[in-house]
Each structure stands twice: as structure tokens, then as C-alpha cells.
């Protein structure tokens, strides 16, 4: 019993799920569900379909190369059973998983690095530019002009005094 990868979206196909299609040139396509199967029949390229792993890897959304991926490789020659080796392998699988998920997190964080700063800048810009939707420019100007008037008077009195 093996867990396979869906050809279209690269998710795992558990036993009892999905469809396998064998082409005339003996290439086997496995699909995890009818969504992927139907997309395949429509001849869609998984590299262009946003929700697939192929797209995400290609466009750098998920990490592509890592040492943790080297651990999982399909081996064609079976090893002689060794209990200790199996125990170690089982434990290793868990740690490798942890390591991999941690690394994926850091990758994601790196990708999202400048996001907060960018968002804040954009928010500030939008606020400044679109404030006229809430408060009419006339209203805003009036306030400032009133302030200006008072200042002017003061200055004039100052200047008069100065002249005098």
C-alpha cells in the first residue's frame, strides 16, 4: 500500500480515493479527486492553476529546494528488515516533519516581510487622498481659513506696532 501524489495538485492520494488514468504510452496519472481529474481532462496546465502545488512552487510561494526533501525518496530496492532501523526511521519521520514545517514557516515569513510596512503606507496614502469623501474640502478649508484670519490680525497688529 502506498500513498501516491495527485498529478494535478500534488496532494496525497490515500487508498480508496481518486482515479488512475493510464495513457497509451503507459504513463500513469493519478488524481486525488474528480476536481483534479476534470481539470486534467480540460487539458489545463497545473502550473497555471493557482491552487496547485506546482503553481505555488513555480511562483515561489512555497519553498522548493531543501534538505528535508532529500529524505523522502522512492526507493526501488527494498532493504532487509531491521527493527532498529525501522524504529529510527519512524522517529526520524516525525522530526523531519517538524523541521520541514518550521522551515516552511520561515519561508512564508520571509515572503511576507515588507507587507505590514507596505500596508501602512498604502493606508496612509488612501486616507490622505480620499478624506474628501467624509469631510468636504470646503469644510476643511473653512476651518483653516478661520485659523488663518486670526493669525493675520495678530500679525498686522504686530506689524503696526513695529511700524510705530
Amino acid at each position: 500500500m502506498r500513498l501516491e501524489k495527485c498529478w494535478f495538485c500534488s496532494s496525497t492520494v490515500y487508498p480508496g480515493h481518486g482515479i488512475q488514468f493510464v495513457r497509451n504510452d503507459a504513463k500513469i496519472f493519478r488524481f486525488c479527486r474528480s476536481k483534479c481529474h476534470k481539470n486534467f481532462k480540460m487539458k489545463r496546465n497545473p502550473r497555471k492553476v493557482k491552487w496547485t502545488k506546482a503553481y505555488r512552487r513555480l511562483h515561489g510561494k512555497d519553498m522548493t529546494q531543501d534538505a528535508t526533501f532529500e529524505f523522502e525518496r522512492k526507493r526501488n530496492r527494498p532493504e532487509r528488515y531491521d527493527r532498529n532501523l525501522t524504529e529510527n526511521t519512524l522517529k526520524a519521520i516525525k522530526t523531519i516533519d517538524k523541521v520541514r514545517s518550521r522551515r516552511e514557516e520561515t519561508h512564508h515569513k520571509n515572503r511576507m516581510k515588507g507587507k505590514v510596512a507596505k500596508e501602512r503606507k498604502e493606508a496612509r496614502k488612501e486616507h490622505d487622498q480620499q478624506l474628501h469623501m467624509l469631510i468636504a474640502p470646503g469644510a476643511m478649508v473653512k476651518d483653516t481659513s478661520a485659523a488663518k484670519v486670526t493669525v493675520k490680525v495678530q500679525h498686522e497688529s504686530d506689524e503696526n506696532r513695529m511700524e510705530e
Partner: protein
Amino acid sequence: MVQYNFKKITKVPTGKDFVDIVLSRTQRQTPTVVHKGYAINRIRQFYMRKVKFTQTNFHEKLSTIIEDFPRLDDIHPFYGDLLHVLYNKDHYKLALGQINTARNLIGKIAKDYVKLLKYGDSLYRCKALKVAALGRMCTVTKRIGPSLAYLDQIRQHMARLPSIDPNTRTILICGYPNVGKSSFINKITRADVDVQPYAFTTKSLFVGHTDYKYLRYQVIDTPGILDRPFEDRNIIEMCSITALAHLRAAVLFFLDISGSCGYTIAQQSALFHSIKSLFMNKPLIIVCNKTDLQSLAGISEDDKKLVEEMRSEALKTLIGQGGEPREGAEVLLTMSTLTEEGVIAVKNAACERLLDQRVEIKMKSKKINECLNRFHVAVPKPRDQKERPVCIPQAVLEAKAKEAAAKESKKLERDLEEENGGAGVYSASLKKHYLLADDEWKEDNMPEILDGHNVYDFVDPDILQRLEELEKEEGLLQEVGEEDEEMDVEDLTPQQQKELAEIRKKKSLLIREHRIKKSTAESRPIVPRKFDKDKRFTSERMGRQLSSLGLDPSKAIERARSKSRGRKRERSSNGDMDVDDGGSNKKMRARSLSMAESRSRSRPPTNVLVPGEGYKDSAQKIKAYKLGRNSVFKRNKDAKKGEGDRVIPNLKPKHLYSGKRSNGKTTRR
């Protein structure tokens, strides 16, 4: 020599079917249309053709029947006798003879009628002649109907006869009923013969095949024979007698020494002596069966004597063969089919004897001389007189001895399975013979899947080492990458955030409205503002919106109001002189007055009663006026031109008259 082609005999149709087949053929495959206006020759030819065609068809079909059925004299005497035993040669020949005569009769009929047809002078006469001819042929065929049925029965039975090759190596099993012949054949071959406690379970010959020394042997199981005079035997017994008589085979005479078949040894030996003439020139072995119930040593003295007599008879045949006198044990064997001891020995002995006999015969015949030149046994020429015997190292001899001992005591998986409860209960441990570093691991179940991964993909002898490296790497990475991003850009104040949220809400509202407008713009008629039903565009609303923006709306409202056309304004065009009004009045004067407005000027006011109109009093007039205005008002709101505008663009809109409801009934629409 057609031995096996009994299966290929074509089906014999019944009399009626036969007639149907031939006549329908005639109708289909000859021209069907003829008129009395045709030339007489043409008419004659037409009918002659039909008659001849029918005759040839009958002839053809009857000939195939006659040829398909084997001639009893031409086939192997074993089959000839067998068929005679089963079907009676005379009846068989009679039936075929009848068919032959029918064929000839039909030929004659056709000939006669064709001759008559040559001189037929009208369509009617030719037709009558043809009808008569065909009718007579059909009657002939119907008369042989019973023969045809009989032949078909024979054909079906013949097809089911066992395919026995009379010339190859054969072993024949005979004896009283219920002695264990069918069980024996079940044991040594793959045949599945019925074994039951009643006599004459086996009613016909059965064939099985077995191998010995790379050669295939036919084993024929016969029905039991009773000790009776030859003439009294029934068909079933005759089958076995025929087989015994004609097949050159090794004969295994079965003896039931326990007597559980219902017949004593005396009876059985009497039978033996009565049919021993049939054992001439055949390697004979007497087999004592059912030794699990009664061993050979334990029978009574008289029985022992009888058995000895039989053995001596059998020996005679052996010596009569002319071979070297072997031990007498070869002629008398014991076995038990139930416990399977001695079964293989019997088979081997029979096969061996038969083989020897056949080889001898071949050597004596002339044919062998032709092949003998092809045989040549090469013997190396001795270069000196030194004796060089076979040299087997001691170790090998010991090993062989051990192996022989171990073989007997070797326990098979099959025995183990039987011990532990049989096939359904016990399942063999396939991992028993695994070669592992530690034998305790043999029955381990290794998980194949863990956490969505295939475990086999991760198995690697250096996995620990690689894991260490990975962890080291990971440790380094963790130390390095913990820098926090300093926020160069400051966040907005809460007030500003609130404002931003409102801005976004308003924007989304605008976008939504625009989308709705966009989608319905073409289908919505542009209703002029004066029929604005929802009263969305009032000056109060404008005022409210402006004040929400922070502006003082009063000036704007006044301006808007002054610009709009109202009756009051019209009337008091020379009235108040505000600065704004003056401006607006100028504009108004510049505009030309509509017809309605000019009319409204020249009309007297509504509450004044005019005598010719028919109102009782001014109150009634006002009421009438109001009623009229209400209806006009409503119509105007619906953008209708007037009373007569009753166009309904879509009388039965689909969405009101069709569709299922997700909940509820659609009995009312």
C-alpha cells in the same frame, strides 16, 4: 480413423424441421414471380428449377447425415463394439439405410416430375405438377421422421462418449461393483468420478490421464461386472466387457478383501476365473483394496487359497509374456484408497508392466527395424584393462541416507495446516523462513504509512547520521534568523483608522451601486425626475448629505429650490425680490412657458363652481378634482401615457409562472 470426431457430427433435424428448412430455402433462393402471360418455356423452366432445387437440397442434407455417422465396420473394433453395445448395430444400420432409401426416392420423384413438367402446357398445370412433386418429397421425408429422431439421439450420446484413444498406453480397472475402482482413479488422475455407496454408481466408461516416467497413460474406469453368464449381461456391464476385450491395456483387477462391497472373496474370485479369458496377453495385476478395513494377512484360509489361485493365474500371464520371471509380489498388490497407502505403488507397477510389454512388442515387430538405426548407444572405448567402478564419496552417501530418512519424517505445511484446524481456520505464517539479522524480528509488522508519508521512502541505513546533520543545520538557522522587523512606517491613529474604515465603506457602497446600475442600465427605462417614486432626490436629502460632509447646506438648498419650477414660484414671479430670487426670476422670464402652464393661468381656480360642469357644490367639485388627480398621479408614477396605456410588455413573466420552490408549495402563483 475417426475416433474423436463424434463431436463433429452435424445435428440431425426432425422430419418436420427438415421439410421446413428445405422448402423455405427453395422459396428464398429461387425466383418467385411468374405470370401466366409469360412464354411457356419460361414457365416450365421456372417450375422445373424449383423441383430440381428442392431435390438437390434434400439430397445434400441427407448425404451429409449418412456420411457424418460413422460406419461401424470402418472404425476401431473397440468403438464398433461399444456403439453396438450402446445402440444396437442393427437398429443403427437400419436407420441409416432408411435415410439412404429416402434419398433415392426423392431423386426418383424429382426426375419423374421434371419429365412431366417438360410437357406442361399451362401455368396452372405446371404449378400443380410442382406442388405434387414437392408434396411427395415432403411426405417421404416425414415418413423417415422417427429414424431422424433416433439418429439425433444417438448423435447426442455419441458426442458425450469419453475420448478414448485405443492405441495409446491404457490402464483398465475392473472388478465387482463398489470395490473402489472409481476412488482409485480419482486418486491417481484428475478425473472426478462419482463415488457412492450403492452399486452401479459408475454407469459408463470414464477416462483419466496420469503420468509416469514422462509418458501419459490413459486410465479407464469401468462399471462393475457381476458374475453372470455372458448372455444375461446388461448394457452397462457390456461396456466394460467390450473395453476389456478390445483395448490392449494393463488390467487392474480389483479385489475387496474386506467384503464391504457386499460380495465375498469367493464370489469375486469366481468372477475372475470367468473373465480370465479376456486377460490374454495383457499385463494383469491383482489389487487388494480396502486394506485399512482388513489386511491381507488376516483373511481366512479358504480366502487365502482363492487369492493364491488368482495370483498363480496372473503369474501365468506374466510368464506367458516371456519376460524374466520377476518376484510374484509384482502381480499381487495391496492398497487402501482411503488412507492412500500403496496407491502410488500400484500405479507404478501397472505402468511399468505395460511399458515393458509395449516395448517388447515394438522390438519384435518389423517397424522397430526402421527406427533402430536411429538409436545408438555410445560406449567409450576402454584404453586399458583397469577397472573403474563408480565412485561416490562417503559424505554424499550419508547425506542421501539422511535425506531419505528425513523425507519420511518431513512435515509439510499442508500437514501443519490440517493439524491446526484446516484451511479456513489456520493461516500459515509466511514469514517463518525469513533470514534476518535477529530472529526475533520475524513476525514484526512494519508500518507502511505514517503521518501521510510512506515509511519505505524514508528507510535509509544512514538515516541517523543525516538526521544529526539536519538538526545541526536547523539549530544554526534558528540562532540566525530571529531579527525583528523594525517598523519604519508608523501606524495610523485610531481616529484616522476610523475615518479610513468609513472611507472604505463608502467606496464599496459606490462600487456596488455602480455595479447594479451597470447591469440594469439597459433594461431600466430612464424615468424623468418628475416621476421619481422613491423620492430619493429631494433637497432635504441633499441637505443631509452635505451636512454629513461638514458643509453648511442652507445656501445650497435655497439655491436649488429657487432654481426649480414650482407653481407658487410661477404665480409670484413679480413677488419677493431677494437677490437670489431676482437672479432666478430673470432666468424664468427668459424661458418660455409650457402650454400647461399657460393654460393654468387662463383657467379659473378649482374651488369655484362653474354652472355647466354638473357638480352639486364646490365641495363635490373639489372631491372630484382630487379623485381625478389621484388616478393621474398614480399613472404618472408608472410612467404611463394615459388611461389607455395598458400595454403590458410581458403578460406572463416566466419567473412568476414557473420554477420550483426550495421550501413550500407552488399551488398558488
